């Protein structure tokens, strides 16, 4: 008997056992062998997109006896070509762990219509719940929600969806919320991830999503990363860039407060052409300063012809940059010496000219979630696009702005319009003609959508929670998304969900949402559902086939939308069968491909037209999913059969798309066919004044952010942060700083070994590699505080605190020790938020207990990177 075959399984079990005996974890996780599946049969070698980040690596799911045993990289997928990072490789380990199997109903439910608040929220102790049948739970939910809609209107019901759901589920959730309930309060974790990029693209380019593709990496002459530790968050992308740099010796620029693995990895390849700008919040000033330097010294790099022909607003931009962004005069904002700005401007100019002459290449720019998470996040995107346009680095292979997403299907959330005020296919709900088309496609009365267009959900995801605190939102659906990704948990989302009637669709018994859920529905997860599609960051649709054999008792989220949608639509007097014309198949589940066809059909005539797949199916009989499988993905738009057969559209704008007859736009998506340049500023003259006002958020219970849009707009227009540390108190010993002072910059982010907060902390391998909450600290700060490497400390902000182990430098005993931080700056990964325990009695690591709820007034995205904190000792008996 060989031991080998069971290694992965054994590794998972070992970790699980360790968790069971470690009192700090507090959870006894059942042996995965005791988890029973619906059946013992399933296909193997299923094609899927990786369940983690937005890069979207091709993944093959292997099964045995109906059970997912392993995940291997797909060598035929054009994105990862057989490579996968540690998270994806071990993703099978987190599937059969501590699963919910039965619907649970809280005995003491919150009843907002009658003013009752449950006394047992903030706990998921089984004694507060009773098990229920699916029929009972669904009937209860539909009854409660229909009652609230009838009494208070649809907008009193909110939904927090997910970029983990396949497109089909997202599409249906949007129909359910806007079309059936008549609510405009639909949000998703996309909001905390990349809506700044979304709204920035809309403002600049007229439509959402990157115009570029991954193959641009190998064509580019210079690559820049803004607020993006790609080595940690999007490793496959980083490795492709690193290999290209090593082969072609291209220059790179990383703008990030920390010296990250990305910075060091690129320097290791060639230190002379690897630049790192360590700035805190200075990005917009840096971009404008580079623009200044290029116009001053490298006029031949400025794409004047392009600006004149294809952009608007460039005159104002040029004038304001020239008058206000001399690199020598704004070093206090850029935090970068002018000489360095001039040097990078020269490199940037040379790469731009090279690309333009060759007709391919130039500067390719990536940015990550950190860059989006600013209260001027939308401006961050626009400002970057401005600089790219000025130097002609857009609309040609090998260059352009390319945002990255965190969730594997955040792009789906964007395209299906599952957000406040959005409709599918990159058009807002205020557009009457499109509203009529969508009402027709959804099978709902147009008047219903007209009413939704009049409703508002001020403040978006954060506003939804504040409105719940105020009593305006009375019920919440939490679907494949956790509330702990929202800022200021202790003062915002948790009290809000305590008051609302909350329905959670979850997979784990100890998921944080369960603490506040009134009804918990056990969901099937990635890999064990029937299937669906994800959209990756280069607009690539890819299939996520599954075993269609979930843990016994669990249902796919998509099935749950259809069921609850039918029930509630009927109760509200709508034609349920017209809206959800789907029937369960022999295997007991709905067929996602039927939904996908409806989605494709509705895309006709939009800039994301995908109807070419339907034409191909008509001509050849090959189903849309099979077309996508065979090509390992199709990039939208694919409006004709020929384009669909060629794999869709690699690059957008400036006629890089194949021609199609009813293409609704010219060079760019705006109605005038132009790229819109809007000057973005930074002005620190009222920094302290504005941040002092913002500091009431989360501290004063009567201060709602949504009532202070003027302050948010002022902060955004000046390019500020939510807080400004009291730097004068830096250098004090731990515990000696006054209780109302917060001397350190405080940033949360991600670590390579983990993806968000749910699965990788339950996977044996990754939880072993990086098991504990840590805090990266500069050695001088540690010396001045009097703390040593590996010591546990408390990080305290105005709103909450967490405990973390101090990690100093690359030799730290605390893993992963891969980055270094500037002095006065602390960083912790939010991934480990509930890795100690999700139970509030034992949970000490909740990152978003500390963060600030101020958000970008247009994108709705919060700033998790620029808070202020104090370091305190742990005084425990």
């Amino acid at each position, binding site marked *: 008997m060989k031991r080998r075959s069971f290694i992965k399984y054994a590794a998972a079990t070992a970790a699980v056992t360790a968790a069971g005996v470690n009192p700090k974890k507090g959870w006894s996780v059942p042996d995965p062998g005791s988890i029973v599946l619906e059946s013992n049969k399933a296909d193997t070698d299923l094609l899927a997109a990786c369940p983690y980040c937005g890069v979207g690596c091709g993944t093959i799911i292997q099964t045995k006896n109906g059970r997912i045993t392993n995940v291997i990289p797909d060598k035929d997928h054009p994105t990862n070509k*057989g490579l996968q990072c540690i998270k994806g490789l071990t993703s099978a380990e987190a599937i059969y762990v501590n699963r919910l199997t039965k619907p649970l109903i809280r005995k003491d439910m919150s009843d907002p219509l009658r003013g009752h608040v449950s006394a047992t929220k903030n706990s998921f102790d089984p004694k507060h719940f009773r098990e229920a049948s699916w029929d009972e739970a669904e009937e209860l939910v539909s009854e409660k929600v229909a009652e609230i809609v009838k009494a208070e209107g649809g907008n009193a019901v909110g939904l927090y969806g997910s970029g983990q759901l396949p497109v089909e589920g997202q599409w249906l959730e949007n129909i359910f919320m806007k079309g059936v309930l008549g609510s405009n309060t639909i949000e998703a974790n996309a909001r905390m991830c990349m809506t700044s990029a979304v709204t920035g693209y809309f403002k600049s380019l007229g439509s959402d999503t990157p115009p570029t593709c991954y193959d641009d990496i190998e064509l580019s002459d210079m690559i820049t990363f803004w607020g993006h530790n790609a080595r940690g968050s999007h490793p496959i992308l980083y490795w492709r860039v690193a290999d290209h740099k090593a082969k072609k010796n291209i220059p790179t620029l990383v703008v990030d407060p920390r010296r990250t693995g990305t910075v060091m990895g690129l320097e290791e390849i060639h230190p002379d052409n690897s630049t790192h700008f360590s700035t805190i919040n200075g990005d917009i000033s840096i971009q404008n300063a580079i623009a200044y330097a290029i116009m001053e010294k490298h006029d031949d790099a400025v794409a004047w012809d392009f600006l004149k022909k294809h952009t608007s607003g460039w005159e104002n931009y040029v004038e304001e940059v020239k008058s206000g962004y001399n690199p020598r005069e704004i070093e206090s904002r850029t935090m970068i010496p002018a000489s360095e700005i001039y040097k990078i401007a020269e490199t940037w100019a040379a790469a731009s000219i090279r690309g333009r002459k060759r007709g391919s290449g130039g500067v390719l720019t990536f940015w990550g979630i950190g860059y989006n998470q600013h209260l001027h996040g939308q401006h961050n995107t626009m400002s970057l696009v401005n600089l790219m346009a000025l130097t002609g680095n857009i609309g040609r292979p090998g260059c352009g702005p390319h945002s990255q997403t965190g969730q594997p299907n955040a792009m789906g959330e964007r395209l299906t319009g599952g957000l406040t005020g959005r409709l599918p296919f990159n058009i807002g709900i205020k557009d009457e003609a499109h509203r009529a088309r969508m009402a027709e496609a959804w099978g709902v009365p147009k008047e219903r959508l007209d009413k939704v267009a009049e409703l508002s959900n001020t403040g978006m995801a954060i506003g939804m929670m504040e409105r719940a605190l105020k009593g305006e939102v009375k019920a919440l659906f939490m679907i494949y998304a956790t509330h702990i990704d929202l800022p200021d948990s202790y003062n915002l989302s948790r009290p809000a969900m305590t008051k609302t009637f909350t329905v959670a669709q979850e997979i784990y018994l100890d998921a944080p949402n369960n603490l506040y859920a009134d009804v918990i529905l056990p969901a099937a997860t990635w890999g064990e559902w029937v299937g669906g599609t994800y959209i990756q960051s280069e607009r690539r649709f890819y299939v996520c086939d599954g075993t269609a054999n979930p843990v016994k008792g669990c249902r796919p989220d998509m099935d749950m939308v259809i069921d609850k949608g039918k029930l509630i639509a009927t109760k509200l007097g709508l034609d349920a069968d017209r809206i959800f014309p789907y029937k369960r198949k022999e295997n007991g589940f709905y067929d996602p491909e039927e939904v996908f066809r409806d989605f494709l059909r509705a895309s006709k005539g939009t800039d994301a037209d995908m109807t070419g797949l339907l034409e191909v199916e008509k001509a050849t009989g090959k189903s849309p999913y099979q077309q996508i499988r065979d090509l390992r993905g199709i990039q939208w738009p694919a409006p004709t059969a020929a384009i669909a057969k060629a794999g869709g559209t690699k690059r957008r704008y400036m006629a890089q798309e194949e021609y199609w007859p009813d293409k609704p736009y010219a060079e760019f998506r705006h109605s005038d066919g132009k790229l819109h340049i809007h000057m973005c500023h930074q002005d620190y003259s009222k920094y302290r004044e504005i941040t002092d006002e913002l500091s009431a958020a989360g501290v004063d219970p009567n201060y709602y952010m949504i009532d202070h849009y003027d302050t948010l707009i002022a902060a955004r227009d000046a390019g500020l942060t939510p807080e400004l540390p009291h730097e004068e108190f830096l250098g004090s010993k731990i515990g000696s700083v006054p209780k109302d002072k917060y001397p350190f910059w405080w940033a949360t982010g991600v670590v390579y070994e983990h993806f968000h907060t749910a699965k990788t902390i339950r996977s044996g391998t990754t939880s072993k590699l990086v098991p504990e909450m840590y805090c990266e600290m500069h050695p001088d700060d540690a010396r001045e505080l009097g703390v040593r490497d590996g010591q546990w400390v408390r990080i305290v902000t105005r709103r909450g605190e967490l405990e973390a182990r101090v990690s100093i430098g690359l030799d730290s005993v605390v893993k992963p020790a891969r980055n270094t931080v500037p002095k006065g700056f602390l960083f912790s990964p939010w991934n480990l938020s509930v890795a100690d325990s999700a139970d509030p009695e034992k949970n000490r690591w909740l990152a978003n207990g500390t963060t600030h709820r101020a958000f970008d007034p247009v994108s709705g995205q919060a700033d998790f990177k620029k808070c202020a904190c104090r370091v305190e000792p742990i005084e425990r008996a």
Partner: protein
Amino acid sequence: MIGGIAAVVITVVALVISISSANEHYRDVVGLKNRHSVFDGAASKPFTGTPDPGAGLALFTTNCASCHQIDGGGMVGLAPSIRNRDFLALASDHFIKKTVNRGRDGTAMVARPDLSDGDLTHIIAYLRSLEVANPVQVSVDWEAEFAGDHYNGEELFGTFCASCHGRDGEGYSSGGSGPGIGLPSFLRAASDDYIMQTLRRGRIGTPMRPFIGAAGLANLTEQDGKDIIAHLRANSERALNFAENAPVRAAKEPNPADGEKLFRANCASCHQIGGVGLPGLAPSIRNRDFLAIASDNFIRATVAGGRPGTAMVARPDLAGSPLSSILLYLRDLEIANPVDIVANPDRVCEGNTANGKALFTRFCASCHGPAGEGYSAGGSGPGIGLTGFLSVATDDYIYQTIHQGRIGTAMMPMTGSRGLANLEEQEVNDIIVYLRSLQSTSI
């Protein structure tokens, strides 16, 4: 004809070498010290001339590029990247020569003792003429042996390596993207430090990332690396004890799914994915008509002996379970209109050689070459006049093929109303008799 004789001799040499190297496995295992013993390779004399990258490119293109690709960048799942900065920094000339001469048993990398030391010197000069923007320098210890805990290594291998290299490191034949680093043939050639440096550095442009230190896919320690190497060594010893050279664990029941993986790893570079063949390179073999006519034994004999004088080299290492799986894969082809061939294995054709030659020249030679030399004559048809083919194919096999043709290929039926020609029964016999005459003269 001299070329034909040379080809046969080479095959025999290759067979002898692969058999003797199989014996060496045991020797190596028993006397571990002998593991990195110097291999003398083919009897060719050491080359003393000037290495010529231009000549190397030509040799590389004809001998290596079909798997390693024209640019040497390899193809994930088929052949590793060898014109590669990191590979070339680690691999010594000796290592490369040894690999080419001996091949990698259990993979499509067959032994090529026919390439002389001079040929290899030129090829290596071509590989090393790669322009490297950011060169790296690595010195590999070819002697040192590391101590490691193979139990820990086994666990690490399962977590970090098996997804690409297969659970036993069997490589592409497992369906993964990584080469067969668990195969005895690899482990015999690679030193512990060669593997360690690869773990440390990765391979630029490939899925193989660094695994040791903070830069890579995993944050392994040096000791972890040693443990993995210990596991690979221990595992290959165990594998040898169970079944000689078997690329897939011997105990496994043959099945079409494994067959497809093995086909992709071993056959698809010429016969193409799906086995549809490529005119001028390899015939269509996952083909209704071919499979109806060709018996399992015919295919087994072809794989075991190869087709001397063509790119189809002998693959005795696939014998047994792997080939059974491949056969199952070939035969599990879905067929809309199956054909029924009434075989007559005892058929012996009699006829007129001269007449057959005239018919061959008129109807067959434009594709198969003037004397049936096949692709090497520049035609689109395989070498049906080669002794290697004729010694395996029965008269009936050829007879049926002429009648039936090969669906989806340029080989049309040559008789009857469907036919490209309207040959008479006796004319078919004449052609076969003519082909047989080629066989007798070429030996």
